[in-house]
């Protein structure tokens, strides 16, 4: 059997939506992470934007941060890298909710 891969056909890079779509998120109505928009408007470093592996922090045109808690890995990166004391209020989601990695 020939398993060589044609040099010109490397894997297609998938979109972020497809990437995050490989995980299951059981979404609770309460946001387990709350971001203080006022604190973010005064922040020029924006560590969360590049570091969040789920890409949940999006800069807005008015200098703020748009945040969506729904597709969160619950890893803790955002509050660990954040330079603004109190800008990110971080808790775990309600029991049974949030990211679910599957058994095989």
């Amino acid at each position, binding site marked *: 059997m020939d398993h060589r891969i044609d040099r010109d056909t*490397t894997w297609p890079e998938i979109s972020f939506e497809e990437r995050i779509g490989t995980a299951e998120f059981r979404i609770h109505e309460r946001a387990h992470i709350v971001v203080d928009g006022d604190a973010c408007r005064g922040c020029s470093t924006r560590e969360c934007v590049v570091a969040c592996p789920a890409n949940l922090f999006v800069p807005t045109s008015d200098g703020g941060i748009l945040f969506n808690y729904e597709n969160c890995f619950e890893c803790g990166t955002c509050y660990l890298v954040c330079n603004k004391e109190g800008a990110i209020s971080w808790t775990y989601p309600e*029991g049974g909710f949030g990211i679910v*990695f599957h058994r095989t």
Partner: protein
Amino acid sequence: MAMSDFDADVIVVGAGPAGSCAAIAAARAGRSVILLERGPFAGSKNMYGGVVYPRILDELIPEWWTTAPVQRWVVRRSTMILSETSSVTIDYRSDDWGRPPHNGATAYRPDFDHWLAGEAVAAGARLVCSTTVTGPLRDERGRVVGVRTDRPDGDLRAPVVIACDGVNSFLAKEAGLYHATDPSNFTLGVKETLAFDRATIEERFNVRDDDGVDIEILGGTAGVSGGGFIYTNRDTVSIGCVLKLPKLAAQSKRPEEIIAGLKAHPSIAPLVEGGRVIEYSAHVIPEAGLSMMPTMVTDGMLVAGDAAALCLAAGIWLEGVNFAMASGMYAGRAAVSALEKNDPSARGLSGYTDLLESTFVLKDHRRLRRIPELVLSDRVQHRYPAFVTSVVDRLFRVDNPRPKPGLRRIVREERKRAGIRLRDLLRDGWTGMRGFG
């Protein structure tokens, strides 16, 4: 408080490897144990790169290899050093590791952790899933006497709580056991699970049957301090990076872009080309070793596993689940002996610290206490990989009609080219020797 006011002798928070082993140890000693898990099943929140070294389980689950849900037995252990376009690999292979009693195995954490929690249930622990602990319960003197949960009337009381609630351990933080949280003590682990057929994996990685490969990588992380890894599962390959948080946050490449760069490296691409991403996942790792560890014991509570920062990131040794299982087991045993003495105070529970200090759990961390910082230092991360690969390149490059240069000359010239001062190289070598030697 009278014993009848308690819901259990021991409450274990988190049904990962630490929590399940704590529950097994306490339940086997005849104690009533509640094992709380915030996910819908044990293992549902858990993620790592992919290799577990379960030797310590010999004490709890004899012949664990006959029942543990592993993907492949690690028979090849490789360390790769990457420059921009080349690589040097040290590759060890032992077919012994493919036979009982084995050494390491690749395993999916939802499978492995679910199995281990099943052992805790078999030992008599009561596993309660879909329940998030929101904080410690304290008595009027500040001693921990249970936990608050997000269930209605969700307070649960026990003389001993074992916090196995993972790297973000809010229990340990709320109990004041961590002094400060420094982001540079943490890395982000990100991983893609790539689907292949088994034959492709076995051909590309030169293994057969249930044998597998563990590749640890220095370099290839877009200049962000950390490293990479590739592990073979039965019909998938896990590839990913660990990235030092402040360094990741201070540049412009996102984690998934850094994985894409690693996958495109000419030494890596032939291994992973064509793989379809079936899972993308992330988790934070406590990487700084001894220097970041919390106080492990307080009145009514013990801390184990990632919650206690018991993860070993020492370059050639990258271990966590075994430290979690061992510390959980010792915490369970210490809880039992404190309950026998009817003294769940920090003093009564102090047998836990003795067990950690007298075994590999803290002996390894003490011996290697300077290594995590060395491994993530700028020289090891950004200068030594190019130095090593260029030395090997010149050693094996046949540059006729020029005669071969001597090794000493190659090393001297390449060290200078890489901008490494002899003094620093010797000092790092000495730090390494003191840790590893």
